[in-house]
């Protein structure tokens, strides 16, 4: 899955996911970062602060809480800066009020959730338990974040660039939904050169009002319901428009009778399961959403024409499976296999599930 064909001007390094993400942020022209330590992503803030001498013009600040940090992001973004924040479950939960404000005030920013097992303080082991929170809104009101799911350290780099670009294009926060394993593991990465992501114009930013324009106001307050509804319509039309940014990857789905659907770390495990199943002459393929919002609904729908059944595999109690079922819409059975609380499924466990579905599958008429 790691991109083998090295692009021009890239620099190749062996890096931990969290550090690769942090380095990518500098190279993507990040102007400010606000954060607060939490395992398993503290290396992001540590890496950034260690690099401050090399990037004197970038603001890196450890806030007193995630609540303060995300509101600093709000202020800096409103002032026109390219800004990032990262955390894990409990910290991301604290940010939800402000993320809701930011979608309403139409402020771009890149948020990173290196997921750990929950609920509660939970565990620091990797999990995908925050899918609902990331994809369905998370805070109050009708809104969405753009959600990107890396499956390798290389994508921890690439999606930083995409995240900034998409959040600025749509003036909506984007979220990278990683997990503790992706944050901690080391892989070879190709780092794009600095300055390769052009700065988006921000004529709406509060930078001080010159005589030549009206004052700029960053607000999420629309007290008259008529105006509030209008703002909602603007947001909904943006979400619709975002549909064209959908990205996914398919592995051996052409002839697959059983399609595994998995994102992030779980997709890496499922890739192995596909190999194991093929060795047993089971026609199994994998659909890996890269954007979780927008969700690759059409790709799933298309596969209902050829596949007999779907198995969604996640490190949670079954969250993305709801979106897969919505897409499949009853045309095919959609099964689920998951581990929770920081447990990582093995390719063999998933294979056992595949085999049980394959047996059942024979009796299902298509």
């Amino acid at each position, binding site marked *: 899955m790691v991109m083998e064909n090295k692009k021009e001007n890239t620099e190749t390094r062996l890096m931990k996911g969290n550090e690769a993400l942090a380095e990518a942020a500098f190279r993507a022209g990040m102007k400010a970062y606000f954060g607060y330590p939490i395992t398993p992503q503290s290396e992001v803030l540590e890496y950034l602060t260690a690099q401050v001498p090399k990037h004197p013009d970038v603001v890196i600040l450890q806030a007193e809480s995630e609540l303060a940090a995300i509101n600093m992001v*709000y202020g800096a973004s409103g002032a026109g800066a390219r800004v990032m924040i990262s955390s894990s479950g409990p910290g991301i939960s604290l940010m939800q009020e402000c993320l809701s404000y930011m979608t309403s005030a139409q402020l771009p920013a890149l948020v990173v959730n290196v997921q750990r097992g929950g609920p509660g303080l939970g565990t620091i082991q990797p999990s995908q338990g925050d899918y609902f929170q990331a994809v369905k809104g998370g805070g109050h009101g009708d809104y969405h974040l753009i959600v990107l799911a890396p499956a390798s350290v290389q994508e921890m780099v690439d999606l930083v660039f995409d995240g900034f670009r998409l959040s600025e294009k749509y003036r909506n926060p984007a979220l990278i939904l990683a997990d503790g394993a992706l944050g901690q593991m080391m892989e070879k990465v190709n780092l794009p050169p600095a300055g390769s992501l052009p700065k988006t114009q921000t004529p709406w930013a509060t930078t001080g009002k010159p005589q030549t324009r009206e004052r700029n106001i960053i607000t999420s307050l629309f007290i008259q319901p008529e105006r509030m509804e209008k703002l909602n319509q603007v947001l909904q039309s943006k979400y619709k428009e975002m549909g064209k940014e959908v990205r996914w990857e398919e592995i051996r789905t052409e002839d697959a009778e059983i399609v595994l659907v998995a994102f992030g770390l779980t997709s890496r495990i499922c890739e192995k399961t596909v190999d194991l199943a093929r060795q047993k002459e089971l026609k199994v393929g994998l659909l890996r959403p890269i954007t979780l919002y927008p969700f690759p609904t059409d790709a799933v729908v298309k596969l209902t024409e050829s596949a007999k059944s779907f198995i969604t595999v996640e490190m949670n109690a079954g969250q993305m499976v709801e979106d897969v079922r919505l897409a499949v819409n009853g045309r095919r059975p959609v099964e689920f296999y998951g581990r929770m609380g920081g447990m990582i499924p093995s390719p063999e466990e998933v294979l056992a599930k595949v085999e049980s579905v394959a047996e059942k599958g024979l009796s299902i008429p298509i």
Partner: protein
Amino acid sequence: MEPAENIDGMMLVYKKPPTLTDTPMHYCPGCGHGVVHKVLMEVVDELKIQEETVGVAPVGCSVFAYDYMNIDMQEAAHGRATAVATGIKRVLPEKFVFTYQGDGDLAAIGTGETIHTINRGENILIVFINNGIYGMTGGQMAPTSLLGMKTTTTPFGREVSAMGNPIKITELIAQLPGAYYVTRQAVYTTAAVRKLKKSIEASFKYQKLKKGTCFIEVVSSCPSNWKLTPVEANEWLEKNMLPFYPLGDIKVPK
């Protein structure tokens, strides 16, 4: 005072600063918010810093401050104004940045942000309107409500045993080395308004020095929720609020 202008044979003795918009204010009669807005914008005009000033108004009665102040502004979530201001100031270090917060905002839900922003010595001005009550939500107890004060959530009066003492957040934050200039002012008389204006002027000048946070508490009134007329409210303020919240400078630059 500016020299009086002559209009149609009459002397102009009072005018609205140009940086205050023509939008009619939604504040109740006798409310302190309008006066503080006006004085703030007067100083912005006199220092000619409209183009370089960014304000932050969080949730509270003054959340609509951006309707009245003709400068770039950001609305902030309840309690988060100084974090938002930190974000702005860090990426625009040469601009003048101020927050305009109520007592619930600054001394209850936003206490953590207040203390840590000042502890970092962020080079911003914090304007803190202490009216001893939650105005916007209809008169509930504030962290600064006086003992015995009746509010909609202390219908029998604030009691220490249940609700603790009113917090003197201004004295508290003055202890922090990051606080450069800390003062408590008021707007209940013309003389008080003039003193407030001097403090605001000084604060903006200090902001250029990058030596820390300037903090101005304004003891203000909320006639509507105090259930008093504007005149009675000013009298009540003088008699009850000022003995507990004495006016004057608390920390001045050496």
